[in-house]
């Protein structure tokens, strides 16, 4: 039976801007509701939840225990230096915390939202001054560098603040995703709208959680992000995170040329579309594709049921990490969907024309950005083809 190229290529239908807006306003989920989608989204979010648990712990450990350490050689070991763990670390039999740092860098670099504004405030400078004063009395290297490079330590402290905040954010998300999996097992969640609602409720519940960060220097506590800053979960971390990682992202060295003369990368970061909702899953695990690390981590924590489901499709184990990436993209649409629903200015059922207009404008703004995202992953799955 000759192989015909066309048969091996699928192009799923994308939905356009209008359709995105319609679904958002009508309360329909972006991802179509099928049993396969529920399995994929819940399963992949469960493994993501487990990975985020490790990421979160490590980021918080790094921000608190490895604060301004010039040689954080064991920063991924969470302070646990037993030989077996070091061996596993050397053998790369571990979570790829580099990806957590990558997300932190993306969030920090794009710098949007309330926390970023706080990092430039005089209050924050004052916090830094106090911390540096405490640090430099004990650390001659920092004492030497700080006057020569006055921006050096504050920038590292800003970076540590983002690290800690992201750790706190992922703490919530990890618990939420693991709860979601439990709810699905209990039968409380069995459809995509329920998944989206579950996540939305979780986000709304955590929305006002305070984001705080302090470090210990020789027994003394210093606030980096003090309670007075009034930073909260949803507005100051979750939204900037979605902006930086889901939407904007950073160009991958493996798919975009950094050559200045080629002008492939926009000078305006707000125009970036390299985020999770725009990414092409097919090159996963290739060279220069950082999310490969996350796919690998999730691959190592895949729920059995989902793993079986993958084994029945396309190349089975052979391309499992591309399939994880595809499912992950679907689940990220659900999370985005939940976040949009949760931040909708007014209830969708509202009959007040002003409220409706405000909702419409909000949905329109999102539709503009999502209209060019990988909405082709949202349709129903085709029947599996086994090779």
């Amino acid at each position, binding site marked *: 039976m000759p*192989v015909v190229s*066309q*048969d091996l*290529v699928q*192009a799923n239908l994308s939905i356009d801007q209008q359709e995105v807006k319609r679904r958002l306003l009508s309360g329909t989920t972006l991802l179509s509701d099928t049993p396969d989608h529920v399995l994929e989204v819940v399963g992949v979010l469960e493994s993501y939840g487990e990975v985020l648990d490790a990421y979160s712990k490590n980021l918080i450990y790094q921000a608190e225990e490895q604060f301004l350490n010039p040689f954080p050689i064991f920063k991924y070991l969470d302070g646990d230096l037993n030989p077996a763990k070091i061996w596993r670390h050397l053998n790369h039999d571990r979570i790829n915390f580099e990806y957590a740092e990558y997300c932190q860098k993306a969030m920090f670099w794009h710098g949007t939202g309330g926390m970023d504004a706080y990092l430039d405030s005089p209050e924050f400078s004052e916090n830094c001054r106090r911390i540096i004063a405490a640090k430099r009395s004990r650390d001659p290297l920092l004492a030497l560098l700080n006057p020569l490079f006055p921006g050096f330590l504050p920038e590292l402290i800003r970076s540590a603040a983002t690290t800690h905040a992201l750790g706190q954010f992922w703490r919530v998300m990890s618990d939420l995703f693991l709860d979601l999996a439990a709810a699905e097992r209990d039968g409380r969640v069995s459809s995509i709208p329920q998944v989206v609602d579950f996540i939305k409720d979780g986000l709304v519940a955590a929305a006002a959680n305070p984001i705080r960060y302090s470090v210990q220097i020789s027994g003394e506590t210093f606030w980096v992000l003090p309670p007075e800053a009034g930073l909260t979960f949803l507005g100051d971390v979750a939204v900037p995170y979605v902006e930086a990682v889901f939407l904007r992202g950073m160009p991958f060295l493996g798919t975009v040329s950094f050559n200045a003369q080629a002008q492939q990368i926009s000078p305006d970061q707000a125009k970036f579309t390299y985020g999770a909702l725009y990414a092409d899953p097919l090159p996963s695990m290739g060279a220069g594709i950082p999310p490969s690390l996350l796919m690998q981590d999730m691959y190592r924590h895949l729920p059995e049921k989902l793993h079986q489901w993958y084994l029945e499709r396309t*190349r089975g184990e*052979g391309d499992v990490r591309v399939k994880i990436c595809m499912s992950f993209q679907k689940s990220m649409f659900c999370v985005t969907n939940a976040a949009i629903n949760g931040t909708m200015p007014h209830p969708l059922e509202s009959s007040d024309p002003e409220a409706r207009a405000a909702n419409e404008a909000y949905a329109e703004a999102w539709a503009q950005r999502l209209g060019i995202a990988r909405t082709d992953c949202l349709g129903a799955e085709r029947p599996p083809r086994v090779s």
Partner: protein
Amino acid sequence: MLLSSLLIVPFLGTLALLLWPDRPSPARLRLITIVILVVQLALSVVAALRFDPSLPGLQLQELHRWLPGIGLDYALGIDGLSLPLVLINGALTLVSAVITRDISKRPRLYFAMLLLISGAVNGAFLADNLLLFFLFYELELIPLWLLISVWGGVNRAYAATKFLIFTAVSGMLILGAFLGLALLTGSVDFSLTPVLSDRLAMGGQLWLLAAILIGFGIKIPLVPLHNWLPDAHTQASTPVSVLLAGVLLKLGTYGLLRFGLQLFPEAWAKLAPALAIWAAISVLYGSLAAIAQTDMKRMVAYSSVGHMGYVLLAAAADTPVSLLGAVFQMVSHGLISALLFLLVGIVYRKTGTRDLEVLRGLLNPERGLPLTGSLMIVAVMASAGLPGMAGFISEFLVFRGSISAFPVATLLSMVGSGLTAVYFLLLVNRAFFGRLAITPPSGDPGSDARLDVQLSTVAPRETIPALALAAGIVFIGLVPSSLGNLSEVASTALANLTAGVS
């Protein structure tokens, strides 16, 4: 008896397959064939071990009078020229059988023909009698024609017929030359050992040599006699292409050395400058034509035309180093082109196309053909003469041996070697780099990036033969003395033979 066994085993195998009672499954037939070919390869290795490389001339000779009336004797022998080719034949036929899968049409005939070809090729390499050589040379023709015309692509009838006509002409010219030799010398002794031609006038020699050159030039093939080859390759199935490029073309170059150079040394020396130019033209023509191809298999086929030209250059230069280079080039081209065809075959089987304007990004680690792609890079680099692999040392010996005799032709051939890099990089960069795709680009990279490509997996067993060939290529590239020791005395003797004449 050892050399005869190299014929008897495959021939008996052919018979056994054809006469096998009841209807064995294709897998069973394949297994039987593989066993027979393993035995044949083992016997070739035994021959290599029994062979004393320090002695010139034929060894392990066997002689039985057959039809003395017409000068046809069953005379076999092996020397440093034919031994590597017998080994390559054993190895590559085995590879062909191993990579043959899902033969649903007439499996019995297919495998029988494979064995028949292998035996006939052994016979041609081992024959110590012109007529015996010719018999085997013709004997290999029909099964190959069948292999193309029964199991080939859509245009197989055209390609097979063309192949048959070209090769038939080739056979006629060679037979004509052999008979002419007998006629002119008035002898019906067709044994190879005595140099027959020195009794002939130069005019007669030149005519006979011309017939030999054109006859074998078709088989090699040399430009402009190459037209059958790209069609034959594109229509033949992968195992047949492996056999055709790896083994059967070598009959042409072997014949050129054995029956051109060795039989007509004086005439050869006269024609050598023209032959060198012919070689350079063939090399450049093959390379340039390859650049313009978009079908991967056609590209590899034209590269064969180019690379076989080096052998003619080496033969024309006729120095110990160049002739050793010719042997090296035959062996390494056998291995490299077999590997290239095998890999192109995998790509074709998985994607359904070989079109370089369609294939992209096959190195993709999860959805593409990463191992095939990596081996393809090894293969094209070997073909482009990168050191550490068989192609380099072969080309180096050819060029080094030829440059004093024919500097211009050698330099032009080296340009051809540079062009190899051009077309093979086009192949690798187009088909294997970039974002995975197997359909024509739509012009909008954004929508191309949304295509989900689902190729079936390349099983490890599909790449094992390729890995073995790659290992062989690297081995010869790093330890060339392994092959050099087998052939050096023979090639030096061949060069001295003509040196003594001129």
